[in-house]
């Protein structure tokens, strides 16, 4: 009874610690985004004007903009005002359009989440399958094929793979019409490309873990007691190999989020990425700041989730076991 209670407390304490670290990371990120702002060349007013393509502004226009965006306030005051707004979900106004940043992002967020979520699922499934096949026949032809495949895919940036797949789908399979109109087909193809590209590294990592655990004691004992190779692999090698793999997935989620805008641009998927790319090309700073902060929060939340999962699965990670 007391064991169960202290175990629950240990998990909660570890989770609170991770949560605190996550909050620190998010706060640090928000500060960093602001500290970099003075590095940007040019007066913010000029940047706003150029973002709106106003060539020869009048003095009133400049004064109005300064007033509207609070540019005359000291730097730290603007940061605190912005942070206060962010906590309430108000990311300020876009320099380019003048519309609230949050509205522009939130409208496109579901499409991006669909893309990243689906590609994550595809990636996990695909790398799991490939790694299991490779580890089941280590050193023999299925393993070699998988290894060669992951080498090539790991060397192909996702946007290059996307272009090649598009070429093949349109010219080779004649899918041009399907991809132009149907949002569903575009989503599946874009997510598959992003996920399959990401899966190369994940497969290599899981394969290495599986092979390591196949050579350890528990697997040997199971084999000696007559378990077949498939059972040894899935019951004695897979669970312990999954844990470090899970942590690695959490870390590389950042790459998935960062890689999505390129894919959205290629497949003309109406997600946040496209919106942000426009903002990047005209230096619409409030939109960029909001995107960076949201992406970091998503990344931090995802790795927090992964850590919580690992804590639940593996008792060795709990604080009381670390003594």
């Amino acid at each position, binding site marked *: 009874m007391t064991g169960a209670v202290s175990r629950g407390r240990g998990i909660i304490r570890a989770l609170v610690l991770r949560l605190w670290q996550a909050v620190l990371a998010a706060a640090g990120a928000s500060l*960093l985004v602001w500290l*970099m702002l003075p590095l940007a060349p040019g007066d913010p007013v000029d940047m706003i004007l150029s973002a709106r393509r106003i060539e020869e502004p009048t003095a009133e226009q400049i004064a109005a903009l300064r007033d509207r965006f609070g540019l005359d306030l000291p730097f730290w005051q603007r940061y605190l005002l912005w942070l206060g707004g962010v906590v309430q979900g108000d990311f300020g106004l876009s320099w380019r359009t003048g519309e609230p940043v949050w509205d522009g992002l939130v409208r496109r967020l579901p499409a991006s989440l669909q893309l990243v979520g689906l590609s994550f699922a595809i990636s996990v499934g695909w790398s799991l399958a490939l790694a299991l096949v490779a580890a089941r026949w280590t050193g023999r032809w299925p393993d070699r094929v998988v290894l060669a495949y992951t080498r090539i895919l790991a*060397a192909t940036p996702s946007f*290059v793979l996307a272009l090649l797949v598009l070429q093949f789908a349109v010219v080779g399979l004649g899918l041009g019409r399907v991809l132009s109109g149907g949002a569903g087909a575009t989503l599946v193809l874009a997510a598959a490309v992003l996920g399959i590209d990401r899966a190369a590294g994940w497969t290599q*990592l899981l394969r290495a873990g599986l092979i390591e655990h196949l050579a350890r004691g528990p697997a040997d004992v199971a084999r000696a007691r007559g378990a077949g190779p498939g059972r040894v692999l899935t019951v004695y090698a897979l669970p312990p190999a999954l844990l470090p793999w899970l942590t690695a997935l959490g870390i590389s989620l*950042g790459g998935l989020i960062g890689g999505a805008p390129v894919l959205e641009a290629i497949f003309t998927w109406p997600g946040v990425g496209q919106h942000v790319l426009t903002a990047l*090309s005209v230096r619409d700073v409030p939109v960029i700041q909001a995107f*960076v902060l949201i992406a970091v929060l998503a990344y931090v939340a995802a790795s927090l989730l992964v850590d919580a999962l690992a804590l639940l699965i593996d008792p060795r990670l709990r604080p009381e076991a670390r003594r």
Partner: protein
Amino acid sequence: MLARPRLAAAMPARPASGLVAGLSRHPSGRWGLILALTLGAVAVAGPWLAPHPPNIPDYGAALRPPGPGHWLGTDATGRNQLSRLLDGARRSLGGAALVAVAITLIGLVVGTLAALGARWVDAVVMRAVDVVMALPGLILAFAVIGLLGPGYTNLLIALIAADWAYTARIARACAFEAVRSPAAIVARQIGVPEWRVILHHVLPPVFWPLLVLGTLGLGGQIAAISAFSFLGLGVQVPHAEWGAMLADSRHLFTVAPWLLLAPAACILLSVLASNLLGEALRDLATPEGRS
């Protein structure tokens, strides 16, 4: 990125003379070395090998398929693709090399200073590293480009800003151990000046992990330079870069597939070379990988 946990352990120093020999004996290192040397030589010799000026259009020769005179065909404005690939190699590969060298130097200096300096210096530097590392690299690069504006120089700055922190952390971990290693302690006790201790006992054990890290990172830098240029945030027109070339011809792929395949192959081979070389270096640097 996936190689991270392994590198944290300090690696022994190895003489540079054995490096090429070791690489040529390693199964994937051999191919990595051959590929990397070839690509590097082509990038350096590019301007002398190029049959045509890379940026001058010749509308009379637009969209020629590969053949005599234009061995890799021409693009929509009649520019020779082989010449543009050679010219672009300097930006794709040269830029990635520049970023990797800058990251390694920054990481080396910051990491070693943190390990050698007072405790508060170490703490301040490492907390800053923690904050930068909490941001996914690509997102940070997006932020820097967004603030500085699109362009090749800004892109290189963004990539350096996005990636230096992890190198600094590894350098600090290795230097921290090296400063307290028996050899360094004994050297200090028999009166060897501090700068010689650093030169002989601290820098070598830091250098090898950073070399592996830098080589493994090269592939990512090549991919990032071409991806950002593809999006129009890096190399600007009319200059050639592999990713920018893909962007120029992406709507022509049904009529001119050669414009898509050649730059794609260049990017793929370069990243592959960096990955193979990095894997081999990692195996050579870790004791268990040497057998």
